[in-house]
C-alpha cells in the first residue's frame, strides 16, 4: 500500500468494543478518484474501519489523516462539518428518511449545508436523473422498491459532490441484478466527480468494481493489490 499522496490514510488503528477488539492495528489509504473495497467476513471489523475513517467513530489509538488534517485532532463539530462537506455515505438499507420524499431525501445533505431549498431540490433531481430515479422524486421511500431506494441513497451520497464516498454493504439488501446496477451507477458517478470510494463489502462481485482491495480479518488489514 502506497500512502504517499493519499487523500485519506489510517495508521495502526485500534478500537475495542467492551472486551472485543474490532480493529487491531489496521492500516488504510485511498487516493482521490480511487475505489477501494474493504472486504472480510462478518465481524472482522470492516464497518468499524469505515466508521473510523469517516470520523463517525473515534479509534482508541492510531492516526487518521484526511487531506493533511488529523481527524482525531478535530472536535465532534468539526468532524460533523467535514462529513457534511467532504464525505458521502451509502448504507446497506439506504436509511432514507421515511417521511421525506425521495427528492427531499437527496436534497437533505445540501440543505444541511445551508443550500436553499429550491436549489437543493434542483440539484437533487439532477442526480436522481443520473441514477435513473428521476420519476421517483415525489414518492416516499416506503413507496419504492429496494433497488430504487438504494439508487436514491446513492444520489443522496453524491449530491454534495463529496471527496470521499463511504459505502457500507450498499448492495447487501438487493438482488444480484439490482446490486450490479447500483454498483455500476455508484462507481461511474463517483469516478465522474473524482471522488474516492471506500466500499465495505463481503461480496467478491461487488469488490470487483474497485481498483484495489483491502481484506480485514480479526481487526487487522491486508492490502491486496489488483491488476488494472
Amino acid at each position, binding site marked *: 500500500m502506497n500512502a504517499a499522496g493519499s487523500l485519506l490514510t489510517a495508521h495502526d488503528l485500534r478500537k475495542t468494543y467492551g472486551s472485543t477488539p474490532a480493529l487491531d492495528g489496521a492500516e488504510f489509504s485511498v487516493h482521490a478518484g480511487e475505489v477501494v473495497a474493504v472486504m472480510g467476513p462478518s465481524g472482522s471489523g470492516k464497518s468499524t474501519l469505515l466508521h473510523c475513517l469517516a470520523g463517525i467513530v473515534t479509534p482508541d489509538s492510531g492516526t487518521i489523516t484526511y487531506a493533511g488534517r488529523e481527524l482525531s485532532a478535530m472536535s465532534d463539530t468539526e468532524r460533523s462539518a467535514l462529513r457534511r462537506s467532504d464525505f458521502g455515505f451509502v448504507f446497506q438499507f439506504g436509511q432514507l*428518511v421515511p417521511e421525506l420524499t425521495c427528492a427531499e431525501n437527496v436534497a437533505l445533505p445540501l440543505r444541511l449545508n445551508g443550500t436553499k431549498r429550491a436549489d437543493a431540490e434542483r440539484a437533487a433531481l439532477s442526480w436522481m436523473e443520473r441514477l435513473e430515479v428521476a420519476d421517483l422524486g415525489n414518492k416516499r421511500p416506503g413507496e419504492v422498491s429496494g433497488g430504487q431506494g438504494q439508487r436514491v441513497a446513492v444520489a443522496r451520497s453524491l449530491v454534495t459532490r463529496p471527496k470521499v464516498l463511504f459505502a457500507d454493504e450498499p448492495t447487501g439488501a438487493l438482488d444480484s441484478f439490482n446490486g450490479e446496477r447500483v454498483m455500476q451507477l455508484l462507481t461511474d458517478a463517483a469516478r465522474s466527480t473524482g471522488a474516492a470510494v471506500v466500499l465495505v463489502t463481503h461480496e467478491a462481485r461487488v469488490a470487483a468494481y474497485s481498483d484495489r482491495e483491502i481484506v480485514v480479518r480479526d481487526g487487522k488489514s491486508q492490502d491486496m493489490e489488483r491488476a488494472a
Partner: protein
Amino acid sequence: MSSRLTHPDTDLATAATEPDPGPTAKGTTWFQDLLMGAKYAVTGGKEGWIRTVLTAVGVGLGVALLLFTTGLPGALDARDQRGRDRMIAETAERKGPDTLLTREENTLFRDHSISGTVLRPEGPDAPLPPGVARFPGPGEMLVSPALAALLDSPDGKELLVPRIPYKRVGTISDAGLIGPVDLVFYAGSDDIEGFAEVRVTAFGDKSPAAPWDPILLLLITVIFVVLLTPVAVFIATAVRFGGERRDRRLAALRLVGADAGTTRRIAAGEAAAGALFGVFVGLAFFLGVRQLVDDVDLGIPTRFFPSDFAVNPALALLVVLAVPAAAIVVTLLAMRGVVVEPLGVVRTAKAAKRRLWWRLILPLAGLAMLYPMIGQGSDRGEFSEWMVTAGVLLLLVGVTALLPWLVEMVVRRLHGGPVAWQLAVRRLQMSSGAATRPVNGIAVAVAGAIALQTLFTGVQDDFTKDTGKDTSRAQLAALIPQHIDNARLPEITKTISEAKGVKKVTTLGSVEAAPADDPQEGYISLTVGDCAALAWVAKLDKCSDGDLFLLPPDNADDTSGSEVKAGQEVLITPTGNESDEPVKPVRWTVPADTKTVAARLDPNGQLLTGIVATPGALRNIETGSLNYHAYITLDLKVPDVQEHARNAIFKADPSLYAMRIMDISTNDRFAAVARGLVAGSAAVMILIGISLLVSQLEQLRERKKLLAALVAFGTRRRTLGLSVLWQTAIPIALGITLATATGLALGTVLLKMVKEPVRFDWAAIGVMAGVGTGVVVLVTALSMPPLWRMMRPEGLRTE
C-alpha cells in the same frame, strides 16, 4: 424471536389452512388467538417483557388514579361521619350522673386548626368522646398522634406547648379523629364552670348530614369527569406502548402462516394481558399508596385514613373486566390501519382522510345534553348528574376526536422552513397519529381544567366572602369574658403587649343598656375605652378622659340598636344578659351636652351605634364587669408573631379566646374542592407527561438507526433536537388551542348552568395552558439525553 416462532407453528399453520369454522368454532379461534397473544406477553423474551411492563405500569398508574378518584367520595363521607361522631348530640341543663362538663379550648397553630376541649365528668355515666378510653384527670390530656408529633417538634415546643400546657397521659384513637393529621386534644380540668361551658350527655350527631350545595356537587361531578377522562385516554395510549416493535414480531408470525385477522387478535391478546397485569399493578399501587396517604404530606391538610379509602367491589370488578376489554378494542381499532406483511415489513396503509362530521357530533351531543341543565343551579335547584357527566364527557372526548383531524388538516398545509421543521412536518404529515395520541390526554386535561377554572372563577364569590374586617389596624383579637374582673385588665393588656412582635393592644369594653321608657324592646350599646380606643370606632376631633359621645343608628342594620339622644334616660344592665341571676338595672341619664359624632368601622368591620364613653365619664356609675375585646396590632415581619401573641393571650388567662382577624373567609368545602382540583390536575398532568415521555422515547428508539445515519452524514444534533421539539410542539400547540376553546366553551355552559355571569380569569387560563405546554417542553427536554445517545455512531453497528 425464535422462541416465539417455534411454539405457534402448529397452531398457526392449522389456523391458516383449516376451512371456515362455524360460529362456535370461530369464537374458539378468537379465544385461542387472544390466549396466544396473552402467552406472548409473558414468554416473548426481553422485548416482550419490556412492552408488557410498559403497558402494565402505564395502565397500572391509570387504574390507581381511577381507584383513588372514585374512592374519594367514600373517603369524604367517612371523614364527614367521623366529624359528626364527635359532635355533641345531647346536652343537659343540670349536673347529673351522665353529664360531662365541657368547654372548647380551640386554637390555631399557623394555619392549622387545633380542636381542644377541656372536660370534667360529673357522674359515673358521663359519656366518653369517641376515641377516648378514659377521662384525663385535671391537668392531664389525651392528644391525637398528629398533635403529639407537633407538640414534640422544636416549633411545637416553643410556640404551642405554652398554650397547651397539660400533661400528656394518652392518645386519642382513630375513632375520635377525622383524619390522620387531625390536631385534637381533650384535657381534664376542675375549672370549667363560669364561661361557655356545655353539659354533654351524648356524643354523635344523629341528624342527617347537611346536603351539599348543588354548585359544589356540579363542581365535584365535573372534576371527576375532567380528571378521569385523561386517565382513560392515557390507558388507551398505554396499551399501545411498544406497538411498532410488536408489529415487527407479528410480521414474523405472518411468515409462518398466520393470517391478518389472527395477527390482529394475537396483538389484542397481548395488549389485553398487559392491561390485565396493569389492573393488578394498579391495585397494588392503590393499596400501597393508600397506606402512605397518612404519611405523605402533600401540602393538603385534608388527609384520610387508609381504611376510609375503600374500593367499591362492583367498581373493582368493572375495572378488572373493562380495562382488558378496552385494550382489545383499542388494539383492534389501531391495527385496522396497519398491514402486517409476511416478509417482516410493516407498512402503514395509506390513511384515509380523516372526516370531520362524525367528530363534530361528539361535542355537539355533549352541548345538547348540557343545554337542558342551564339555569338549574340557581335557587338550590337540582342537576341531573348523569346528564352533566355524559355532556361533559362527550365534550371532552370530542377533543380527542377533533384533535387528530385538526392536526392532520393543519400539517397538510405546512410547507417550507428549515430542515428541522421540514423533518418534523413531513413526519407529522406521514403519520400524525403517533404524535397526537399522547397530546390528546394533555388536551383533555387542559380543556377540563380551564372549564373548571372558569366555573371556579364564576362561583368563587359565592363561597369566598370579603369579611369587611380591617386587618391593617389589628390582626388578632382576644375576647375577655365578663367573668374576668375588670381590675385585671391592665395586667392582661400588659402581658399581651409584652409578647414578641406585639406592637399595640387596644381594648374596648361593652355593656348593654336599654331605653328607660322601653326596656323590653329597645337596645342600646354602651362602649367603653380610652380616647385612642374610641377613635377606632368613632370619628373624634378631640377627646379626653371624661368625655362621651353618641353614635347615630345604622339604618342599614335593624339589629344595631335604638337611637339614643342627649338627656335621654337609659337603664344599664350591669352584668349583662349572660347571667341567670336577676340583675338590677342602673338608671342613668345621658348628659344633655353629649355630642353626636360619626361612627367608624371597627377592626371587625362593624359600625357601632349607641354610646361610646371614656372610663372617666362612667366613673360614678355601677356598670359591673364589662365584656372586653382586646384588639392586637402585630408586627407581621416577626416570624410566628401570631403564635407568640396567642401564647401571651393564654398566659394572661386561659379562658381568653383568641380570634384571628381575616379580611377574606372561604367556605371550607369550596376550599377543599379547589385544593382537590389542584392536586388531581397535578397528578393527571404528571401521568400524561409520563405517557408522552414513553411514547417519545419509543418513537426515537424505533428510529435509532436512521438517527445514527443522519448523524453520519453530518446532521447537527441541534437540527435533530429541534425536529423532535417541532414534532411535539405542533400537535401540542394545536391541542392546547383546541383545549382552550373547548374549555372556555364548557366553562361558559357550566356558568350558565349555575346562572352566574360569564367571566374568564385569563391569567389562570394562561397558567393552565402554560402548564400543559410546560409538560411538553419538559418531556422534550427529558428525551434529549436519550436522543443524543441514540445519535451515537454505535447505532449504525449491526453486529
